[in-house]
């Protein structure tokens, strides 16, 4: 007798391919996930999500590759400011350390510099002599000029010859081929020294440069144990080993020495470099966030479509856990699948654009590394897990009864989960791109606040729309906005987020870059004059006025030594590195009745009866308002409390001071004056006239360093604009991809309207109404958000004055309405072209 199978063990029909493995309790999750992925890719269901993900990965990796290369290129160029990858400065020869460095495999060169006098035809001229060893410069090049022909060289002058700065040649009335005496040795002038990479501390270069070979130094007889010579050991190493080798060398250095790196070698350059890095980080970040918004929308659409399949699998007996695993695995596969073309497109895009921008960037770009590709994969995974998984996780809760009643659906994902995980993923993605906790915090805070405001306003609009008594299809247009408040709000918020990013890139970016450029205006002072005696101030001012030379004002400089803090004598041993060097040095105290715009009080009050100190030095020495500082001025202690802390814009090229005091405190101290002024190039005759009228004056020519910094800012601006253009394009693609997500629902609803007798014009009217409201709302929201974000970014991150540009509202509204003008005809054509029957069946 054939046993009747128990209903519990009866096998499922063989036609249900996934059934047997589920029924046996060993679900072939991998196979089901892969089959589903393949089927959905073929059917086009995952196309939008895949495209969004590929665009996201491509945008991020392209930006990553490019910023990586620009960053490396800029760092390589930054090395020119040191003529090396690292430099050790000391008052004594560095032979032992040089030997240690070479033993480690570090390439070295050494230079020394000191002020001296050059004699030509019995005319003396104070110069800054620099002697360089073979191998100098390790990074960058020198530019010299012989017979008005500029030459770029990667080595210093030959022994027995000297290169003199054009200013020195002009002041001495010499030309290449003539001779000069330096110490006990006569040198032939080989060329005019137009440019050297490591200008060094410009304020220490009190006189025009003269450069000779290091091997000529003994013959000059100028360097003795008592000489005030600064020795520099230049270091270079391949990028991959650089950090490790420098760390090992540093461990062997005495505490008083440190390795100077290009990033912090020049305050002005450093500021420019930091800003460039921040701008590039911002551009990359925007691409990441746009990708996140698109994935969020695409995943919601996928969730809606997948409910039938999930219900079917549950009806076949799949557990919630199995369903969850299948979809998580499918996302993982999708991440891997999208990364390959995404990274490939990213590589090709960045290569094409790097080639396009090569001349404009004027930075030699090293080949891309593999890190951005790995970051691309990581970003695909994080983005999917952060933005898509929360939307799909509730698929496992799809009721099996849905196979009979399609109205039954999985509960929508909890908003807290959706946004919480999304925000966490966003934070991780932004950090991966920017590697800057402050920037990440600001952007996340700004976006989080914007998103909440967007959602709140969208929700408010939803409620308000219900009050409107609009009739017919027009009402349908508004009601469509109002229904499913969460979905509607997310769509508005995503659009507003996208437009915020575009406005931030398109408008605020321009403002920021303009403001950045204007930090060093073309007529910024390019000369500093010191050693101005009090009785020369009026005469010099009159001379300058007569010559039409605008000066930045005359400031007294009182030399002083810091001796005590809160009545306790300072101990230099308590400080290291830069703090120690600053504490050892004499301070230049000054006094001024009014603060110029490049000084901003950040703590305390101005004017006060005590010291006003610069923010950076206050941080270095842990000074606070109220602390008592004692300076030894002309042999007498002067004690006062700190009454204010100032943020100083050093880029202004005006005389600025770490410590300012009230006139009463410094009135009896001997002072010399300092000023800065602008002389348009060529300015040798004016310099000569000035120095002949005031022979004791010392001039510092900042023109070269200013040109270098301006050049860097311009190149960085171009790089940033290039990256922004790419991000902008990626953002537009992502926005269009996001709209695909709502297309199916719109098709069905339009079909119902058509069946009920709605004409195309009525449907288009509803679309116009709906998208006009969306456009206006999105435009306003994004204008306000981008304005606020831009102001905060300018103020907090770029040290630029933060202001809200009211024209943003116009741009926002115009962009919102443009979005409407583009999207409505496009969407209208798509949704009204399909036959109502096809749409209803589909």
């Amino acid at each position, binding site marked *: 007798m054939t046993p009747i199978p128990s209903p519990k063990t009866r096998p499922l029909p063989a036609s249900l391919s996934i059934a047997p493995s589920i029924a046996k309790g060993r679900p072939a999750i991998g196979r089901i996930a892969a089959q589903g992925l393949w089927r959905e890719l073929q059917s086009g269901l995952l196309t939008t999500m895949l495209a969004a993900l590929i665009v996201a990965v491509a945008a991020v990796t392209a930006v990553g590759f490019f910023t990586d290369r620009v960053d490396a290129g800029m760092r390589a160029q930054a090395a020119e400011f040191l003529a090396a990858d690292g430099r050790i400065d000391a008052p004594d020869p560095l032979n032992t350390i040089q030997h240690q460095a070479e033993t480690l495999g570090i390439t070295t060169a050494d230079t020394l510099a000191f002020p001296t006098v050059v004699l030509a035809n019995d005319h003396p001229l104070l110069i800054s002599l620099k002697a360089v060893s073979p191998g100098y410069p390790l990074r960058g090049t020198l530019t010299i000029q012989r017979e008005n022909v500029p030459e770029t060289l990667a080595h210093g002058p030959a022994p027995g010859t000297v290169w003199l700065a054009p200013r020195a040649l002009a002041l001495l009335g010499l030309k290449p081929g003539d001779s000069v005496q330096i110490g006990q040795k006569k040198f032939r002038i080989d060329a005019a020294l137009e440019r050297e990479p490591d200008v060094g501390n410009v304020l220490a270069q009190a006189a025009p440069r003269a450069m000779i070979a290091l091997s000529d130094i003994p013959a000059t007889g100028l360097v003795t144990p008592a000489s005030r010579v600064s020795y520099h050991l230049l270091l270079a190493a391949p990028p991959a080993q650089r950090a490790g080798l420098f760390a090992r060398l540093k461990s062997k250095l005495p505490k008083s020495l440190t390795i100077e790196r290009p990033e912090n070698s020049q305050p002005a350059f450093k500021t420019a470099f930091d800003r460039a890095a921040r701008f590039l980080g911002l551009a990359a970040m925007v691409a990441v966030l746009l990708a996140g918004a698109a994935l969020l929308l695409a995943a919601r659409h996928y969730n809606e479509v997948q409910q039938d399949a999930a219900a079917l699998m549950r009806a076949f007996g799949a557990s919630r856990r199995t369903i969850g695993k299948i979809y998580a695995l499918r996302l993982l596969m999708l991440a891997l699948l999208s990364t390959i073309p995404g990274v490939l497109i990213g590589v090709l895009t960045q290569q094409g654009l790097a080639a396009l921008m090569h001349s404009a960037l004027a930075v030699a770009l090293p080949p891309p590394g593999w890190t951005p590709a790995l970051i691309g994969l990581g970003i695909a995974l994080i983005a999917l897990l952060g933005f898509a998984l929360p939307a799909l996780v509730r698929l496992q809760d799809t009721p099996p009864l849905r196979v009979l009643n*399609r109205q039954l659906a999985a509960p929508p994902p909890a908003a807290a989960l959706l946004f919480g995980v999304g925000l966490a993923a966003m934070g991780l993605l932004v950090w991966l791109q920017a590697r800057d906790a402050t920037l990440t915090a600001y952007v996340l805070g700004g976006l989080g606040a914007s998103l909440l405001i967007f959602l709140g306003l969208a929700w408010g609009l939803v409620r308000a729309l219900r009050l409107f008594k609009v*009739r017919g*299809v027009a009402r*349908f247009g508004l009601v469509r906005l109002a229904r*499913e408040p969460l979905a509607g709000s997310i769509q508005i918020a995503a659009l507003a987020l996208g437009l915020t990013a575009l406005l931030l890139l398109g408008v605020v970016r321009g403002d920021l870059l303009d403001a950045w450029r204007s930090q060093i205006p073309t007529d910024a002072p390019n000369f500093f004059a010191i050693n101005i005696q009090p009785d020369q101030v009026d005469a010099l001012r009159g001379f300058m006025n007569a010559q039409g030379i605008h000066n930045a004002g005359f400031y007294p400089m009182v030399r002083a030594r810091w001796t005590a803090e809160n009545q306790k004598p300072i101990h230099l041993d308590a400080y290291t590195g830069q703090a120690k060097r600053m504490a050892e040095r004499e301070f230049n105290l000054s006094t001024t009745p009014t603060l110029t715009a490049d000084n901003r009080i950040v703590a305390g009050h101005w004017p006060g009866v005590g010291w006003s100190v610069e923010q950076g030095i206050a941080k270095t020495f842990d000074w606070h308002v109220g602390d008592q500082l004692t300076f030894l001025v002309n042999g007498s202690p002067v004690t006062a409390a700190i009454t204010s802390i100032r943020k100083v814009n050093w880029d202004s090229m005006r005389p600025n001071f770490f410590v300012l005091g009230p006139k009463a405190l410094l009135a009896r101290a001997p002072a010399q004056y300092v000023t800065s002024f602008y002389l348009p190039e060529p300015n040798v005759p004016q310099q000569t006239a000035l120095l002949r009228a005031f022979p004791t004056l010392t001039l510092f020519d900042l023109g070269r360093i200013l040109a270098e910094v301006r050049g860097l800012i311009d190149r960085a601006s171009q790089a940033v604009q290039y990256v922004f253009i790419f991000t902008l394009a990626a953002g537009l693609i992502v926005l269009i991809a996001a709209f695909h997500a709502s297309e199916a629902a719109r098709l069905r609803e339009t079909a119902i309207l058509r069946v009920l007798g709605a004409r195309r*014009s009525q449907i288009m009217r509803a679309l116009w109404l709906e998208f006009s409201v969306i456009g206006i709302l999105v435009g306003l929201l994004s204008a306000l958000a981008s304005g606020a974000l831009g102001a905060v970014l300018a103020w907090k991150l770029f040290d630029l004055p933060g202001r809200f540009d009211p024209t943003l509202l116009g741009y926002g509204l115009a962009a919102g309405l443009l979005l409407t003008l583009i999207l409505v005809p496009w969407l209208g054509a798509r949704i009204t072209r399909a036959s109502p*029957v096809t749409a*209803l069946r589909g």
Partner: protein
Amino acid sequence: MSSEKLNPVVRAAQVSKVVTGPGDGDGAKALTILHEVDLEIACGEAVAIIGPSGAGKSTLLSLLAGLDHPSTGHLELAGFSLNELDEDGRAAVRAGRVGFVFQSFQLIDGLTALENVALPLELNGIADAERRARAALVAVGLADRLAHRPRQLSGGEQQRVALARAFAGTPEILFADEPTGALDTATGEQVIDLLFALRDRHATTLVLVTHDPALAARCDRQYEIRAGRLRELASDTAGTATA
């Protein structure tokens, strides 16, 4: 009831529908869904079209209602030649004259029951759309469900909303496509009773597609469609059908 004596409100002459289907490797392949169908339905008649799945029932209904256009043949609806009209023109013919009931209800999720019923009335510019929609919902027994959204209603209730929407505009013709297909037997019977009651009250012409012979039997005439060819099953009227 004789359709020859009354003006036909629905007329199909030699109507065929051919679609392009997937080929066998040599390119696309033409697939005939409907083959030279002739049909006339008189005002006030109830006609059932039955047939197995995939026979072309819904395609014929779509063509008769002006939701789709035929490959060949001539179609008239409410005295208008559909062949000469574009989609907008056909929509204008449907508006106010034609009601629909679908197997899957086809309500708009974001609208309340009242808004769903009022929508076609508002499309036609009827001033007291909301009052009429409310009355229609009361008539189908959903007075206490006016503000509910489709997802808050049972399947039977959703189909009753669809019935209210279909009859609120007092259409001349009602097209019903498997109206009980998504409902259990008891609920389905209730919905059908309601449909016929409303149809009798408004003297509406009914074109009903179903696979249920019992339901078809409640109509004046019955047609069967097989492999795209239509034939009348029982003929005590003057309606014509050719295979």
